[in-house]
């Protein structure tokens, strides 16, 4: 319990520091929120154009897809809030040898590497995702029960954990190649399919791979279907939580193995 409190305190300090740092560049801070809004608007516009030419896509109506985009936005932006900057920074820590300093801290190293920077700006964009979810639900004319909302929070956390664990494993490649920014860029391509209805993909290698190996077709689809009330069985919920746990365990294994390969860049 005492350790937990210490970690909470340290995280609080890191958050405070990140916010203060961010506020030094106010205009830039606001511009980033606008840019992210623009990209989200782009996704909505894309679907609006598609639905201008069809009534439904693989059984999903227009507002169900808007709901899906909203869920994807929430998960993706929360991933930004807590992890993206830190993970893309790992290769720099290794290249410059700054990781040495962190190793010497009396804290869990993975904790420090993963959550050092807190991106407050993206909280606003995640909020925008929630607004769009509310909008879509109003258009669909239904409101989920308290239990469904609770389930939504759980599956969003599971999705967040999946993104974090997969991306963390990719970032660990930097222990061997030193430069690994391109890899995170590659991960962004995966986000592009996370916001599509899984049913649009025919059963086959592609769908199986992106459901069970890299579960992109689950992370946003399952929360959206939960809220839309189109889940027929609790199977996908259990699968998502189970895969999240498996991904996290795998990433811890990769992390320990990678650390053994670390040879400091400085003297």
């Amino acid at each position, binding site marked *: 319990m005492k350790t937990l409190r210490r970690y909470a305190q340290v995280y609080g300090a890191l958050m405070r520091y990140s916010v203060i740092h961010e506020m030094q*560049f106010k205009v*830039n801070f606001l*511009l*980033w929120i*606008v*840019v992210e809004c*623009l*990209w989200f608007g*782009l996704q909505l*516009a*894309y679907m609006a*154009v*598609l639905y*201008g*030419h*069809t*009534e*439904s*896509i*693989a059984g999903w109506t227009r507002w169900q897809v808007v709901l899906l985009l909203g869920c994807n936005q929430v998960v993706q932006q929360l991933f930004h809030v807590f992890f993206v900057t830190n993970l893309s920074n790992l290769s720099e820590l290794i290249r410059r040898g700054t990781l040495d300093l962190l190793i010497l801290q009396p804290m869990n190293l993975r904790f420090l590497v993963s959550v050092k920077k807190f991106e407050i700006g993206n909280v606003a964009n995640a909020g925008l995702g929630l607004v769009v979810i509310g909008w879509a639900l109003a258009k669909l004319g239904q409101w989920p029960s308290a239990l469904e909302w609770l389930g939504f929070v759980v599956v969003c956390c599971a999705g967040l954990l999946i993104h974090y664990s997969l991306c963390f494993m990719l970032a660990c490649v930097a222990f061997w190649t030193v430069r690994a920014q*391109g890899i995170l*860029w*590659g991960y962004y*391509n*995966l986000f*592009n*399919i996370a916001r*599509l*209805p899984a*049913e*649009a*993909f*025919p059963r086959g290698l*592609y769908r199986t791979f992106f459901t069970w190996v890299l579960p992109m077709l689950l992370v946003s689809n399952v929360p959206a279907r939960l809220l839309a009330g189109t889940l027929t069985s609790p199977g996908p919920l259990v699968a998502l939580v189970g895969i999240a746990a498996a991904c996290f365990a795998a990433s811890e294994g990769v992390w320990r193995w990678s650390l053994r390969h670390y040879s400091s860049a400085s003297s």
Partner: protein
Amino acid sequence: MGKYLHVLSIGLQNTLVYRANFLFRAAFGLIPLAGTLYLWRAIYGEPGAGAVINGYTLAQMMSYYLVLTMVDAFTAVAEDDWQIAGDIKDGQISQFLLKPIDYLQYRLSLYAAGRLIYTTCALVPVAVFLAFQWSAVVGPVSVLALGQTALATLLAGMLQFFIAYTVALLAFWVLDVSTFIFTQFALEYIASGHLFPLDLLPPWLHQVLMGTPYPYLAYFPVGLYLGRISGNAAWLGLGIQIFWVLAAYLLARLVFRLGVRKYSAVGG
């Protein structure tokens, strides 16, 4: 001219170092492409959907995205804009102001080198992908259209470079240009036809967008290939494209001149 050929050859050698990275990038880029193609297949497969949407058959729609991918490989700016902004920020650009070398031509040579290597690397995964999608691919409507597509792609590459170059030059005035680069990229992404063929939009919006330079980066060359733009409209379009290339070139020169006046050679 000779010295820029030399830059080109150095650029080729430097970029070759990243060939594995490029191969990886091109292969990863195919994942969302496959997603888009599946999405369109699902739309055409909906009960009650016609065989033709806005004049596009399924094969033409698939080909739109496949040709787009190739045009994109030829013309996309990869790291160029970030490097230019970096040169200005760290004062690296000072050496170009002092030597008899023109920065724009220097960057253009490096961009050309990067694109040559990238396209060659991207050919491997794209060819494999095409082999799987072969039944869905339609050829160019005519030899003339293919020639026009090639010319339009070349011009699109130049236009793309001048736009990226100009946006990167904003680094003369602001500390961090990344928001500008991303905003420009977002506009370009939707208005150039990267997400969907622009003629799927309501006609008035399509017309408005055609008044901007963006469609000439992607939609125009692909439209030529598919025969969506042909005859007089094709030649007129090429004329407009040349106009935009020249305009973007002059703007790039102007912004550079203004920027240098503001430049204070930090770290130099």
